């Protein structure tokens, strides 16, 4: 068990020194800062291009949060997939695990440490982005149309836990970063296709990043998404266990 913290520390150091965490943090902070701004300015920008005659509704806090969830679910998670898509496969191509494993580092510790490190980074950047957007949204929009910001963010955090497990499994399965990315895109495509099945909506992990604004406004209860959270967390567990099994079978040299 003592090997896990050691490898975890190595992972933290790596993500810091390769500047991956820095890039991730800056991008998510920019999303957080620009969401309220974009919501506030969109009507003015439209008026500039379409002329002053166009009647547009005044933006509300809901628009600001819509921008936030759109930015994170349409760009943020793919940036994560690109940045961390090589987390296992790069170690295998560079043969950097050979020395550690022959000196007694169990392979499961590699996967668990990598996953915990990814999850930690995700929680830190999303929570910071969330609080910044919350602050600016209350600053720029003094309406009461978004009564449940925390309940709306919770499904996003759970989805992240699932998405990172997909990225990790893809990276373990693929021989190259791009194969891992392909796997991640494939999983997302299947989940979006499954969205067409209306009955499965509350069980589909993708609903966790699609229904946030409805929860925020109070149009949808968070409890409706509990099945999707259960499915997402179950799949997370399966993906992590399969990653360990896969890595156990892989040749390191």
């Amino acid at each position, binding site marked *: 068990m003592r090997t896990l913290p050691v490898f975890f520390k190595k992972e933290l150091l790596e993500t810091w020194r390769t500047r991956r965490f820095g890039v991730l943090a800056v991008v998510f*902070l920019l999303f957080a*800062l620009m969401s*309220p701004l974009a919501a*506030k300015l969109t009507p*003015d920008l439209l008026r500039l291009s379409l002329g002053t005659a166009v009647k547009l509704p005044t933006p509300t806090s809901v628009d600001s949060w819509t921008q936030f969830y759109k930015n994170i679910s349409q760009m943020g998670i793919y940036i994560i997939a690109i940045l961390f898509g090589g987390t296992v496969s*790069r170690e295998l191509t560079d043969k950097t695990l050979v020395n550690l494993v022959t000196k007694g580092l169990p392979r499961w510790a590699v996967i668990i440490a990598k996953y915990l490190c990814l999850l930690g980074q995700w929680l830190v950047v999303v929570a910071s982005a969330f609080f910044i957007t919350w602050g600016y949204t209350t600053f720029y929009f003094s309406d009461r149309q978004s009564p449940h910001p925390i309940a709306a963010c919770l499904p996003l955090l759970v989805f992240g836990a699932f998405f990172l497990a997909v990225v990790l499994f893809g990276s373990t399965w693929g021989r190259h970063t791009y194969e891992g990315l392909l796997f991640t895109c494939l999983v997302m495509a299947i989940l979006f296709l499954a969205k067409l099945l209306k009955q499965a909506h509350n069980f589909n992990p993708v609903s966790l990043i699609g229904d946030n604004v409805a929860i925020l406004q109070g149009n949808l209860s968070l409890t409706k998404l509990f099945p999707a959270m259960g499915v997402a967390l179950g799949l997370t567990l399966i993906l992590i266990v399969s990653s360990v099994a896969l890595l156990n079978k892989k040749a390191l040299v």
Partner: protein
Amino acid sequence: MDLNETQFLIDYWPTLLPVAILEVGLMLVALKHIFQHTRYRFGNRVMWVVIVVVFQIIGPVAYFTWGKGTTSDE
């Protein structure tokens, strides 16, 4: 609201200032790294400087993801 520039800056400096700091900061860190190294995973120095300066945010992210090598001299 009319979009005259000074009024715009006065109204939105609480967001614009941190955005500008983050964008310029990211660019400077990427430029520092580019000038400290002579070899990249692909491309050359001029290409990366242009990409990082011209494309805000996306340029530096692309550099740190694809341009920067993993060994100390890249």
